[in-house]
């Protein structure tokens, strides 16, 4: 969750606090339970819109059969999983997959072992993946270099906070080994990132995604072909050790717009996606 979303979430929760603080004014008994139920549902829906909107939004549009026209000649399907263009009776369905490198770049405490070997086989793996495909696709890497000093300062701040938490945990009697190990791991991850910056590795914000287009004589045929192509892509690109997920919902609309206009600032890029750093 980015800072802006957090601010939106915090402010939306204000209403819950107001109701909780004045609970007595709503009356007791069954109405009291009703208020509690509405509050719980409110929080649940807010959390769902925060963390699972990619499920909720397509579910709603699918249920009500809602489609969107993002621009002339294009249509976003009711399942929010593809953009369709009709050209002279032929349907071109375009779908997207994320291809994130989160798995081994950002969760590890140190650079994974055998990184040099992995780098060496990367071009070959890429060529093998490409050769196994027989339909058009695009592999996009969108990046924006970050300010080294700013990133370093942020990491130092985070490390200091974790160290403070650790010193508090050490003084507390309820601290378990699991909590200590978790805090130590967090510190190690931050330290590993700082070390990589010290070794002149530049911090970047990165967004990687794959786009493919399938053709059909009807919308359904095009969508079926697209699903088959996306499956093949997931299998072929699996060799590159990237986390592959099908893009649905609002992110599909954003990626569609990227076909014609890219973000021009890092803030613009990061406001729509969970960016890798």
């Amino acid at each position: 969750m980015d800072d802006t979303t957090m601010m939106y979430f915090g402010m939306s929760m204000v209403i819950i606090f107001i109701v909780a603080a004045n609970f007595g004014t709503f009356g007791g008994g069954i109405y009291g339970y009703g208020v509690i139920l509405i509050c719980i549902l409110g929080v649940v829906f807010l959390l769902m819109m925060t963390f699972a909107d990619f499920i909720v939004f397509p579910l709603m549009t699918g249920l009500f059969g809602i489609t969107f026209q993002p621009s002339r000649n294009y249509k976003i399907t009711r399942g929010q999983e593809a953009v369709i263009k009709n050209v002279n009776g032929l349907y071109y369905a375009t779908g997207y997959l994320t291809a994130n490198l989160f798995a081994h770049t950002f969760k590890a405490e140190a650079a994974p072992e055998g990184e040099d070997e992995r780098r060496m086989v990367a071009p070959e793996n890429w060529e093998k993946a490409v050769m196994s495909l027989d339909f058009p696709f695009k592999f996009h890497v969108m990046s924006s270099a970050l300010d080294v000093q700013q990133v370093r300062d942020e990491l130092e701040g985070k490390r200091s906070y974790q160290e403070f938490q650790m010193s508090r945990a050490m003084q507390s009697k309820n601290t378990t080994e699991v909590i200590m190990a978790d805090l130590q791991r967090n510190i190690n991850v931050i330290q590993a990132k700082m070390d990589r910056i010290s070794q002149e590795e530049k911090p970047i914000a990165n967004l990687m995604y794959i786009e493919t287009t399938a053709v059909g004589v009807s919308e359904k045929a095009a969508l079926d072909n697209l699903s088959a192509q996306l499956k093949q892509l997931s299998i072929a690109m699996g060799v590159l050790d990237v986390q592959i997920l099908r893009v649905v919902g609002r992110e599909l609309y954003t990626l569609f717009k990227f076909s014609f206009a890219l973000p021009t600032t890092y803030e613009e890029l990061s406001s729509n996606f969970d960016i890798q750093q």
Partner: protein
Amino acid sequence: MENAGIFVFIGLLMIAIFMVLVEITIPQGVIDPSYRLVILAVAFFFDLMAFSSRFYGYLFLPVLKQRKRHIVLSNEDAYWLSTTGDSILHKEGDMFTSTIYIKIPLYISATEMGETEKMEFTRQCARVVCMSHDPIRFTSQMNVMNKDDYLKTIRDTIGEVENKEALIASGVKTDESEDRVKGKASMWHHMFDRISGTASFEMITYASVSGKGSKEFEAISAAQARSRDAMSAIGSIFGVPPSIVTGEALLKFVEPEYLIPYSTISEQITKQIREQVS
């Protein structure tokens, strides 16, 4: 646009808070408690809408205005070619965005590389990805080659050779022997079958950058400035001369129908129908 989103959020949130505050200030017994629950539920609905405006604000107005199952977010063309011919333009609100495509001519394969070259190539890719402070997109695109012109040339040649073959068969003397003409016809037929039988693919690597402006020329100038920086960095890292894609060639990177030529699709459909029938 971002500011407009915040105003929508604040507006909806204020409605929700106002409803709850009104409900709190009304003494018990004035209105039926079940109505209180309904008002509270409506307040939560507005609260949820306020939060949803973070990412779905662009849908609110069209959904409310149109109230249909097919909602038109924009009836404009997604883009148009700039007058300079080197970029595409997109308009959102009052702002223009110009996008320039830079072709990176990389014609190397991992099979031709040694171990050190592979490492060096990976390093070059890492360097190029983190070269710019402004967002830049690198793309490797695989598309079906349009062989229509080439196939037409072969078909014409086959026609000429077969014509010669017919002349020889009817006793007319030509500058080539009968065996040679027959061999030629067989060769061209074989070549035609081979080339038209399977789809050929091409891999293109390119970078794209965008610039924004309140006027078309401002956006184009901003994008051009960024593309110049990107080109010099790409050129120095890979040692190749990148070039800006202009005119109709841009369509291959933007339009889905340019990824697969029409002739290939008709062949695929015919093949599918044949498979279904047999």
